[in-house]
């Protein structure tokens, strides 16, 4: 093929700018730390990376949900714990009151103490977490339990039986609230019955209300507390799972989108060498023609 100076300058220019462009791309990858900076850099890997990104966001979300829900469950657990304590105290009073040697005055004193425990139990049943009543169903803004005027003979429930669902992993919605209406009334009734029996000097009533009914109320509370504990454990397991998932997805996404520095820097040096070589070659080929030698 016949070769002209113009062809050589054109070729040299094309090659130099192509090499420069490749060097710039390599440099860009090193300095940005991103292997994929725009969709066309690697559409297939980007599609995967976007999928991972959404999955990471979801795992993050579930971990957050579980953390918030766990705090609620812990608060519930604490409230149920103090409920048990109160019922244990009441049971001790019942044991005392069932003693045949006690006078009716002494029983009246015990009855007063039972009344106080009842008030404390109501206040525990009305306890809240971050302003939300734990045991009110979904009516979390008002105290669910109220004593009728003293001496109280009944406790009314103003909450509802709604359940609070939390999505802890894709498609799995778990209720986190303990239904106060199912846990507390037995205790309330046992305490009221105990107080009435104490006031009436009714020893068999004290045994029935104080001991049997309190035991049954305590086992209700214990059951609820066990269930809360079981949920905390389950949440923790799911949280660990999601956390691991999040970590491995982050690694996978990084492999797809982040610069592999060893490779990128090697590539950059190679491109740099090629560019320098093309400049050197250009400097030598572009000078001179036959005119330099004719005299």
């Amino acid at each position, binding site marked *: *093929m*016949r*070769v*002209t*100076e*113009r*062809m050589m300058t*054109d*070729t040299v220019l*094309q090659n130099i700018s192509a090499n420069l462009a490749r060097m710039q791309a390599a440099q860009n990858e090193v300095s940005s730390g*991103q292997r*994929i*900076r*725009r*969709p*066309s*850099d*690697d*559409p*297939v890997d*980007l*599609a995967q*990376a*976007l*999928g991972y*990104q*959404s999955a990471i*966001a*979801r795992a*993050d*979300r579930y971990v*957050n*949900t579980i953390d*918030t*829900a766990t705090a609620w469950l812990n608060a519930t657990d604490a409230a149920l714990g103090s409920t048990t304590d109160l019922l244990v105290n009441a049971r001790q009073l019942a044991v005392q009151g069932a003693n045949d040697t006690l006078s009716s005055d002494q029983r009246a004193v015990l009855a007063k103490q039972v009344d106080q425990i009842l008030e404390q139990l109501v206040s525990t049943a009305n306890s809240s977490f*971050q*302003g*939300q009543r734990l045991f*009110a*169903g*979904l*009516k*979390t*803004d008002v105290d669910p339990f109220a004593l009728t005027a003293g001496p109280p003979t009944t406790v009314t429930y103003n909450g*509802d039986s*709604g359940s*609070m*669902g*939390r*999505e802890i992993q*894709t*498609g799995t*919605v778990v209720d986190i*609230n303990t239904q106060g209406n199912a846990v507390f009334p037995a205790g309330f009734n046992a305490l009221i019955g105990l107080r009435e029996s104490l006031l009436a000097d009714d020893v068999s009533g004290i045994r029935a209300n104080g001991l049997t009914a309190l035991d049954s109320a305590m086992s209700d509370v214990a059951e609820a507390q066990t269930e809360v504990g079981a949920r905390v454990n389950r949440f923790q397991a799911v949280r660990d799972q999601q956390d691991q998932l999040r970590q491995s997805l982050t690694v996978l996404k990084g492999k797809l*989108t982040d610069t592999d520095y060893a490779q990128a820097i090697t590539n950059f040096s190679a491109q740099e060498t090629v560019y320098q070589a093309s400049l050197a070659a250009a400097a030598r080929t572009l000078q001179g*023609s*036959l*005119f330099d030698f*004719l005299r």
Partner: protein
Amino acid sequence: MDDPPVTGGFMGLETALRALQSQQAGIDVTSHNVANANTPGFSRQSAELVATRALDVVGAAGQIGTGVTVTRYQRARDAFLDVQYRLQDARLHQARVTQDTLDQVETILNEPSASGISSLLDRFFDSWATLADNPSDLTARAAVVQQAASMAAALNGAASALTVLQGQLDSSVNLRVTEVNDLAKQIASLNQQIVQTEIFGQAANDLRDRRDLVIDRLSGLAHVTTTEAASGSVDIFIGAHALVSGINTDPLATTPTGPGGSFEVRFSSDNSLATIASGELRGLLDARDVNLPSYLSRLNAIGSSLITTVNQVHAAGYGTDGNTGRDFFVGTDAATIAVNPVLVADPRLVAAADAPAQPGNNAVALAVAQLHETLSPSPEDAYAALVTSLGIDGRSSRDLADNQQLMVNLLSQRRQSVSGVSLDQEAVDLTRYQRAYQAAARVITALDEMLDKLINDTGIVGR
């Protein structure tokens, strides 16, 4: 050979004179070539030297030569390569426009990035999940409204940037059509000059170079086919319709009759649609009418699906004021999506519950947060698919443009190989013509000395 010619004493001088003139012409052509070594579109020229008519010598066998003359000045050009080059160059221009457009769409969508629509979609649903965790929390409601507003703003921004880009392409169509008409006029005018020059038998080399250059530029804008008449005039066709015939042009016109009032390219004479096979104009029209609308409609589909589905769930829910039936979003597509201004003014009205007066109720917030699972495809997936196909289109358009560039480079080299000026060759030619000129001059000196002998030193006896 009518009469037997007679060789005379002055014939040699005549021959030498023709030699001087011819070699001089050769040097002139060389000088012209060297001068235009860097002129775009210039084709190397050469003087075609031919021996002049020989004379029969009376009484002798054979003929005697009478020297040399320049019959014509030739232009080194391969018309087949021109056709090839223009075809591929038109495709290159088209591919570059597609590539540039997709590049800009990539810039508009700005993926992958922490501030792209994909992240904002994730954060939008995340804010609903946070509200579902704390249904009575006012800050969580405010966060839902804010995240929704930034997501809506990003969708609005992308949709309007795509529309603006479409408008820019439309005005480019108009500009390029003006350029096509201008080039067509230049070709018609060059046709006229070439025909006028060549009618006297002279090759209008430089005018032809200029015309070829103009046709190169024209075919980069819109692929054309050419036919050359015997007179030297070239007719230019876009599709089957003549754009230039001889000294007349049928200019293109843009009429705002396309979809959405966009420009259509039609011939002025009969108002017929120009069928542009390739070239920059084809690229602009395709980018405007095919590429961008496809991305815009997919983006709008994502926007309208968000509006419909979120509204459907939200309208069934209750705000903290106990009222129901409110839409979360207003608008119809990605361009118009916005958070219901009522909710922006008072985030407490965001519905998280599916019943009134239940601050702990998160059923609606949870249902919205779960939309990314219940919808198929989810908005995130639909958007990721959009970005992926944009990436694939962008990648293949870049590959196509790069391949096309290689092809054009190769053809350009081949054209250069045929038509380009080689300074080495010109140096050799210059030396060749110079030497021949010197030799012819020496012949004149010899003849002059001979005639001098004959005239001044012969027959002087008795003078």
